[in-house]
């Protein structure tokens, strides 16, 4: 019995002491750069492994390791539609060692739709960077019966596709119906991008909204093609595809809706830290990111993942400003989207 107790005690001591060798020294670091040396940065990714946000996060992670001397560990927390990950980052210790790589669209839409499970506030996060600003396009079958906006407006009892009712694809499709005044409804529940593209090709649905970079392989396979951009300007990725405002005249509240999709609800990968991270550490990370953006090798790697020839980047304050502007308009857009769901859900 004595031997057991001694061995258990020895094991416990070992287990408690060993980690100390990996711990920081007691003295305060001089700079943010010193702070990160030898630490572990935990990057929380709120989407599936292999998705663009995950891949971009891993590229960023490799540069972080190189330039901070920290080791970077990735944890996928994609439960509750990605909310689990965002909430986790929001409530983490604001020491700069927990970062979040989140899908920008969902991040914003959760607050617009006032999702009760979203505990975070847009204006409180510490923003590092936003990579990508992929516009939404309305996709149709290349050889289908609807090849123009006029065809859509002439159609009757049409079915468009979407995922969950308050999801970006569904709301995008509903926005198209609203803007073009179509005789159509949106069938919800087609969650995967590939399934939606196949449904279009089979003629089960007329179309849906998507971002080019996220659906490039479906376009290349001939399943879908973009008809127009849900915005006021053309997408550099597909310069031949017109913006919706080039096709029909849009003004007033409808134009605000189009601008929401163009400026705010763009598909991007957002990198955030919990509220309250010390300014010097934030500034250090901003500085690193700004350097990487100037690095051709870094940009080439990001472009390869995103499928864009020239990906767009927002750093630090620019992202925070965008979120602050959105926070002011949440209530208005929420009412609008709820009304559309009520009206157009099949």
């Amino acid at each position, binding site marked *: 019995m004595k031997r057991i107790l001694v*061995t*258990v005690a020895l*094991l*416990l001591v070992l*287990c408690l002491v060993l*980690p100390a060798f990996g711990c920081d020294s007691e003295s305060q670091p001089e700079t943010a750069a010193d702070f990160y040396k030898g630490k572990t940065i935990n990057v929380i990714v709120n989407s599936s492994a292999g998705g663009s946000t995950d891949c971009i996060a891993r590229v960023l992670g490799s540069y972080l390791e190189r330039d901070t001397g920290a080791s970077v560990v990735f944890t996928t927390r994609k439960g509750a539609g990605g909310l689990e990950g965002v909430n*986790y980052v929001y*409530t*983490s210790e604001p020491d700069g060692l927990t970062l979040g790589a989140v899908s920008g669209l969902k991040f914003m839409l959760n607050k617009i739709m006032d999702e009760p499970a979203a505990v975070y506030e847009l204006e409180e996060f510490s923003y590092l960077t936003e990579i990508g600003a992929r516009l939404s396009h309305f996709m149709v079958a290349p050889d289908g019966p609807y090849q123009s906006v006029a065809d859509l407006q002439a159609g009757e009892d049409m079915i468009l596709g979407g995922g969950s009712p308050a999801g970006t694809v569904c709301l995008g499709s509903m926005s198209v119906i609203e803007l073009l005044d179509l005789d159509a409804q949106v069938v919800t529940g087609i969650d995967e991008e590939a399934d939606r593209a196949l449904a279009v090709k089979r003629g089960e649905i007329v179309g849906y909204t998507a971002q080019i970079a996220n659906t490039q392989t479906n376009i290349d396979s001939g399943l879908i093609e973009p008809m127009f951009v849900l915005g006021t300007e053309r997408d550099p990725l597909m310069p031949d595809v017109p913006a919706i405002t080039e096709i029909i005249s849009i003004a007033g509240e409808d134009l605000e809706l189009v601008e929401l999709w163009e400026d705010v609800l763009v598909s991007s990968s957002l990198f955030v830290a919990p509220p309250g991270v010390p300014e010097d550490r934030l500034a250090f990370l901003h500085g690193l990111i700004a350097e990487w953006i100037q690095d051709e090798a870094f940009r080439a790697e990001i472009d390869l993942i995103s499928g864009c020839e020239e990906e767009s980047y927002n750093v630090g304050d620019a992202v925070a400003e965008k979120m602050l502007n959105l926070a002011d308009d949440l209530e208005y857009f929420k009412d609008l989207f709820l009304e559309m769901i009520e009206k157009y859900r099949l």
Partner: protein
Amino acid sequence: MRTKGGLWIAVFFLIIGLYGLIQSLTFGYWEAVALPAAVSGVMVLMATVEIGKELYSSGKGETTSGELKLRRDKREEIDFRRLGLVVGWVAAFMLCIYLFGFRISVPLYAFAYLKWRGRHWLIAAVFALVMLGFIYGAFEFGLKVSLFQGIVFGAR
């Protein structure tokens, strides 16, 4: 009655079925109600039939294929004491991981369980260290998967 345990598990299915049926009727949308209600309804029906069989059947041992067959001359009963002890160990291990993380719990559990089972302390200690090494080698260093550190040490 065939076996008390068999009756209780049939009652368990009946309760689940009833719960499912009542809950599903509150979902609002017909799309959300349809299948859960249908499935629960079938469960209630089948559980009632099974309870009837348990209460009034002569007790021939029935089983489903895909499991070890019960021998008709020897009904399997649960050794609650043994089961309680084993489940206790499992639950204690889980709680230990939750509180103190894998780093402490894995060697502690491995050592303590093997000692409880009567193994020599040296074998238990070596095995405990091997398991700790394996967990860290495979997960933390090999796969860079961060194992749970325990809420006592700040994990969430």
